[in-house]
Structures are given as C-alpha cells and as structure tokens.
C-alpha cells in the first residue's frame, strides 16, 4: 500500500494531524496499536454509567478561541454540541483540615473579585497574578493570533526560567497559593518546576471559560471518525508497528503486522521515549537518543469511577463544579514518595452534565509505578499478579470513603464501580510509567521539537508542545504546519 502520510497513534493529536492533512487533500492513514480509536479520549461504561478517561473539561472552545477555530476549519462543529460552563461554575478548592472553600471561577474578573473578598490583605498579589498570567498569554500565538508563530517557536524550545511561584511569593496564606496554582493538576508539574510561560498557557485557557461536550471525549472521537472516513482516511486498529524503514536518510516505509506501507511522512504521536522501539537509534545523535529516553514524565494517577446514589443537587453539589480537596500545608511538589493519605483528590462528574452518563462521578489522585510494582508481571502488558484486583478495589473504596466523608457527609453517596491504576494507563495508552500527561513541560526540561533529523519523521502529541486536549491538538497543528507550511495553515485556521 502507498500513502503519503502515516500517523502513528489515534489519540486527539493523531486524529487532528490526520484530519488537517486530509482537509488539505493529502493521502493519510492512521495506525493504532490499541483495539479502539481515541487514546485518552475514550469513554467506557460500567453498569450503564458512562465514564470519561481523560477528558473532563477543556478551555479554548469559545467562538474566537483556537480549538473552536481548528474544529470549525475541520468541519467537526456540525457534529458537536459544545456547552459553556455556566457563570456560577468554578474550581472548588477545599481542605481536609480547614473548613474554608475557595472558588476559582472560569473567568478572570470573577476569580479576582471572589478571591479578593476572601483574602482582602492579598488583593494586590491576586491582581498581580492574574495580570501577569494574562500578559504572558498575550505573547502566545494560540491566544493572540497577531503574534507570529515563527517568532514564538524560535524560542519555544527553551522554557522560560521564570518560576510561576515567584509571582506568588509574599502571599501569607498557603490556601490562597494552592487555589491560584490549582491548574498544576491539569499538566502534572510540581510547583517548584513550573515555569510562568507554561503555567500561563494552561491557566489562561480555563480562566477564559471552560467547556463541556455532550457525550464527552467519545463524541469528539466519533465526529473525527466521520470526517476522516468521508475523506477516505484508512484507520488501522490493533496494529503493531514493527519498524519504520529508512532509505537515503529519509523515511521510506512503515512495516506493521506484515503490511508494507510505502510513505513519505510519518507523524509519531506516542511517547517520545518509545520512538526508538520503531527505528534504529544509530541514525540519531547519541545526545538526542539519551535526551528523549531520559525525559522526565508527569505522574500517573489512580482513578476511581463511581456511581452516585442520588442526584448531585440533592447533596448540594453541581456537575459544573470541579471539586478539589487538599491539606492546607500542601506544597504541590508532588513527589513520588509522599504519604498516600495526604495526596490531593479531585472529584468531577462530566457525564452528569448532559445526562448521558446517568449519575457517575470520577475521583482522581496521583499515583506511581511504585504503588503497583508488585502486581506487574515482568512488565508484560495485561498480565497482573494475584491480588491486583483486590488491591485496586481496596484503594478504590478507600478513595470513595474519603470523598464521601469530605464532600457528601454520607458514607454512601459514591459507590465504587471501576478503577484505573498506573498499569492500566501504561498498557492502554502505551504510556511509560503510566504517565497521564506525558513528558513534563517544566523549567528543568526542554520540550522535544516537532522536527527530527530523519527527513519525513515528525513528532506530535501531548509530550511535544503541550498537554491536554488543547495542547495535544495544537501540537498536531504545529507539526502538520512543518509539513505543509506553518504560516499558511495558521492563516487558513485563524483567518489572520
């Protein structure tokens, strides 16, 4: 088979890359190792309750926002029902050891007002924080279409050395610091390593508005599949790539399950450290191989998927609010050696928002391979040692109990249905160490480039530009831009 472009991986980054190329009339095929398309976007059901794996909410879907523009350009919007979070909705930051609840609204103005009234002595600092985030965001082309994409990427490889914590020094109440930094949860970097540039990129998206999609991540996958099928893009699932063939210093073909795909360009969206499973590493400089192999990852998670025994309203809770619970002396420097019972917990209920998931809620906390090492059978996918199911159930129930006590004042509001551990994420998503957001975008680490030394080989995905639905989508916009011309693609999508 011959096809001009092969996309490896069918998460949001792979689907986006395929759709942009197809929109430009290029021939494309997608190869996915999992039996299902969609990567982290996939939904699943337990006892009739639908759950999202990696899509609880997103920013950038307002009419003038970049993700909306991209989806408009691709013709996806006709299939999607996008709902803006209502004005009263917010991140709700609460504490295991304090009765204070801090709302961080999906609006600069409202957040500034509410926080200032809760912490009047820190009004100046609060104002400065939001102003700084806004100013930095205005230098990022995805938020300000007038900024040149090329200029931005000239410096992008080098993260700003300004730590976000710097602008918060002087705030005396740590609970306020935690509320302001709550977006760290959405990209998995410890506070001490978070750069202002990256933080602003994530925080700005949510401070400008949050969005829900009816049907969740699955609705996004399904709409992508519609446009890709119509464009004649072939999607191969359950397909293992043996190798990428190189000829005369360029990509020549992809060999997968005995099939031979002659191709010009390959966009690889898996984790960068696994790239050399598919290619002779001798082609690259040792420094490059070492850097990609040694990338430091964001943490993994333990997730409990629960059913709710009554309406959220009945408990005075709203599915349009994301609930966080922390200890007030938390430093957000999630280390892998921290006491498990002190970890922050997040509660979110995306499928309740549109009624597609009846009453289901998701509880998330950080986790690591160390927690599950004993159950990992020689690193072999899908194989688990005895006791794994019992351990997962125990941990899941512990998390439910904690959430029930903290948020619902009842020991039976949430009931455990299913759990995911770092082993689940590792094996289902091909994510080393079960990392949920890929390689860290932090002060201490350079983000790998979209380009590689091998002509025709490009990288994309959450580890490349930025994590999250927005980050992974934009990563592919930039990567495809390298192939078809960045500035002209940018013009078509943004109209500027």
């Amino acid at each position, binding site marked *: 088979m011959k096809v001009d472009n092969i996309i490896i991986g069918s998460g949001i980054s792979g689907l986006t890359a395929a759709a942009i190329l197809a929109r430009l009339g290029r021939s494309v095929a997608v190869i996915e190792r999992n039996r299902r398309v969609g990567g982290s976007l996939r939904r699943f059901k337990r006892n009739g309750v639908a759950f999202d794996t990696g899509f609880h909410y997103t920013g950038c879907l307002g009419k003038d926002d970049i993700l909306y523009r991209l989806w408009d350009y691709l013709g996806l919007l006709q299939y999607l029902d996008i709902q803006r979070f209502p004005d009263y909705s917010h991140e709700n930051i609460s504490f295991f050891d304090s009765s204070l609840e801090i709302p961080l609204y999906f609006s600069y103005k409202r957040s500034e007002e509410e926080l200032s009234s809760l912490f009047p002595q820190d009004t100046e600092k609060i104002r400065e924080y939001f102003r700084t985030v806004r100013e930095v965001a205005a230098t990022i082309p995805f938020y300000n279409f007038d900024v040149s994409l090329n200029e931005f990427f000239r*410096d992008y*490889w*080098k993260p700003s*050395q300004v730590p976000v914590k710097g602008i918060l020094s002087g705030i005396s109440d740590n609970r306020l610091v935690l509320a302001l930094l709550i977006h760290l949860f959405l990209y998995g970097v410890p506070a001490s390593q978070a750069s202002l540039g990256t933080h602003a990129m994530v925080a700005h998206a949510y401070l400008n508005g949050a969005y829900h999609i009816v049907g969740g991540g699955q609705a996004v996958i399904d709409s992508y599949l519609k446009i890709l099928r119509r464009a004649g893009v072939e999607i191969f699932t359950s397909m293992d790539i043996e190798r990428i063939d190189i000829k005369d210093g360029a990509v020549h073909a992809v060999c997968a399950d005995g099939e031979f795909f002659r191709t010009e360009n390959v966009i690889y969206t898996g984790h960068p450290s696994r790239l050399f499973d598919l290619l002779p590493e001798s082609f690259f*400089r*040792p*420094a*490059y191989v*070492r*850097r990609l192999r040694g990338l430091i990852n964001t943490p993994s998670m333990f997730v409990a998927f629960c059913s709710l025994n009554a309406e959220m309203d009945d408990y005075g809770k709203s599915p349009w609010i994301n609930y966080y619970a922390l200890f007030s002396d938390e430093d957000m420097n999630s280390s892998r050696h921290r006491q498990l019972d002190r970890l922050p917990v997040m509660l979110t209920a995306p499928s309740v928002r549109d009624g597609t998931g009846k009453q289901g809620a998701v509880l998330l906390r950080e986790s690591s391979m160390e927690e599950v090492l004993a159950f990992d059978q020689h690193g072999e996918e899908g194989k688990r040692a005895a006791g794994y199911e019992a351990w997962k159930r125990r941990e899941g129930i512990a998390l439910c109990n904690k959430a029930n006590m903290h948020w619902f004042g009842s020991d039976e509001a949430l009931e455990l249905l299913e759990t995911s551990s770092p082993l689940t994420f590792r094996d289902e998503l091909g994510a080393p160490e079960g990392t949920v957001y890929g390689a860290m975008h932090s002060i201490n680490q*350079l983000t790998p*480039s979209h*380009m*590689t*030394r091998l002509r025709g080989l490009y990288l994309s995905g959450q580890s490349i530009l930025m994590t999250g639905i927005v980050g992974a989508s934009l990563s592919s916009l930039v990567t495809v831009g390298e192939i078809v011309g960045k500035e002209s693609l940018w013009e078509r999508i943004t109209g500027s």
Partner: protein
Amino acid sequence: MFTDEQLEKKVQDILCEEFELDAEKLKPQANLYEDLGLDSLDAVDLVVALEQGFGIKLTDEEAVRSVRTLDDLYALLRKIRDQRMGS
C-alpha cells in the same frame, strides 16, 4: 573548577561521544554548523549536553545563538565559569 584546557577537552569529549564527531575536525576555528555539520536541532541537544556536562544553565539565549565556532563556545563557557567564580 575547570582550567581552560580541561574545559576545552570536556567540550571535545561531548562532541565526540554525544554527537559522533571526528576528533580531528575539532579545531578552534571550526564552525559548528558549516564545518562540523550540526543543525538547529542538534544545537538544542548540545545545550542540554553542555548543561549536564558542566552542571550549568545556559540561560542567555542571545549568547547561545551567537555562538558559531568552537572558539566562541569555549569563550562563552569560560565567561560563565568566571562569573561563577566571581560570585
């Protein structure tokens, strides 16, 4: 702290081992890009390798970008070394 010779030797070791360059080509006047064949992608890896090798941070992007020859690179690293000694 590195003497000038140690510093140059270390840079050469990094270029040989991590970038598989020919030791004989590593003349002080050699242009990293035109003579040694590094490209802009390699430059990023070189920054990382030097940061790790010397335990420093190359934060001055303008200075890094203006490096063309091995001599320029030595001079930049000497400057960083001397600044650290002074502080």
